[in-house]
């Protein structure tokens, strides 16, 4: 059973052992509106916590997606290239962006859990 953590920039990471699956939250996809394009990192790239790892675009906006923790990209969701709408439909599931091998697991503790993220979102409203 994987554990899901959240960032203040609205990324999520589902942790399973030393791998993590990263995406943007349902709140983020809603704020962006219809997503039209996603630029994913190359496999093998090293990403660092808070550093730019992907770009997500709607018609009138482009946002960077930051790595929640340090890691090496081991897989990307290529289906998003054909069907970026998956992120709108299922941001926290089928709309995942990339998978990393987590390098610095201690950083996970700095992220929010589901409840804390909910509280954080309420604070933004």
């Amino acid at each position, binding site marked *: 059973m994987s554990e899901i953590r959240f960032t203040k920039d609205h990324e999520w990471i589902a942790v399973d052992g030393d791998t993590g699956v990263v995406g943007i939250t349902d709140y983020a996809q809603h704020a962006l509106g219809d997503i039209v394009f996603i*630029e994913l990192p190359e496999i093998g790239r090293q990403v660092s916590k808070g550093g730019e790892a992907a770009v997500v675009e709607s018609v*009138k906006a482009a946002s960077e997606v930051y790595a929640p923790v340090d890691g090496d990209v081991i897989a990307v969701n290529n289906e998003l290239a054909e069907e970026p709408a998956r992120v709108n439909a299922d941001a926290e599931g089928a709309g995942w962006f990339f998978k990393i091998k987590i390098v610095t697991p201690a950083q996970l503790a700095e992220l929010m859990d589901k409840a804390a993220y909910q509280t954080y979102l309420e604070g933004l409203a």
Partner: protein
Amino acid sequence: MRYLPLTEADRREMLAVIGAASVAELYRDVPEMARLPGPIAGLPNHMGELEVERLLSSMAAKNVTAGSVPFFLGGGAYRHHIPATVDSLIQRGEFLTSYTPYQPEIAQGTLQFLFEFQSQVALLTGMEVANASMYDGATACAEAVMMANRTTKRSRALLAGNLHPHYRDTTATLARFNGFEIVAGAPAPSDRENLIDKIDTTISCVVVQSPDVFGHVHNLTALAAACQAKGALLIAVVTEAVSLGLLTPPGAMGADIVVGEGQSLGIPLGYGGPHLGLFAAKEKYIRQMPGRLIGQTVDADGRRGWVLTLSTREQHIRREKATSNICTNSGLCALAFSMHLTLLGETGFTDLARLNHAKAVQLAEKLGDLKGLRILNDGFFNEFTIDVGRRANKVVNKLAKRGILAGVPAARLFPDSDGLTDLLVVAATECTTEADMDALARGLGELL
């Protein structure tokens, strides 16, 4: 003042609504010392149409117009005949006085002609996609190099020596400040430059012009393969768009990006501007392209329509991460280009290209017979280089005094290069008559 509809009564009434005693009060945020109490002294006051016309016509009259003399200049700007329909229709107020099509529901006219323009440019260059225009060929060239740098993540560009020097300098200027490196070959008027050996894995792109600034035409196939082998992009430059009606297009020879100057179709020489930057590329590079793109879609009723699309590349959305800072481009020039090309159609365009080439061949045959003159080109489209055996700029000035505009001295294009002083680049188009050619041959014959 005929352009100002407000009357004195209107102004008083409006000030009263605002609650200001005078217009000066509305400028109260401006530092006192920078405010001007009245019209700037020493400058003339307003004039009627008649006076403006008289003044500007007197300036215009001091210039020798291309159409009034035997004329052989090219070098990146070509005199072609523009059908009357083009200039008349681009002056329709709905085209002339509209802005960038930000509200697509009431800008379908502009959006559709730009979509047609993109399609035409893609066909001409043999590329998959084209944008809605750049400022001119030189800036399109500089932007193409930046795009190749982004795409390859390299920062060293190889420029052919026979690239138009203004294109080279525009690109080099951007390189200086952006921080990428330019490796530019020396001009090779006799067409002997080996670019392939200079390509290595540090090069982001090779920029090569065909027909080049001396008129030589190049088969790019081997160069394209060499670029591909080293992971560099091939950028082909075309300064004479009419050549694309006769020559195999760069896209069919493996170019990754094609940029060029569209002035030859629908746009007057205009002393060098405004002209029209063309920009086409392989579809896989689309996200790295600069400038506006028009895309097809449907409206709420399912009817076909067009919109600005992939805008997230652009400055108004991406700001410092944009692919370019370009905003205003050359919309009306693109319309003129597209309209001229539509009038020509497949047969007209290819015939026009053949006619241009035939005129240049005819000119070459007439000049080739002259003693003391040598043609440097084996192959050319409508422009070639001659060695006149003495300083070409003096020859040009002497002929200008006799009412012949003879061509572009290579030294005017490359003032810093040695060994080019005797070279003259001459062009012929459909506008060039046999009598014009005879006049030039006679003039040169007497001087050489």
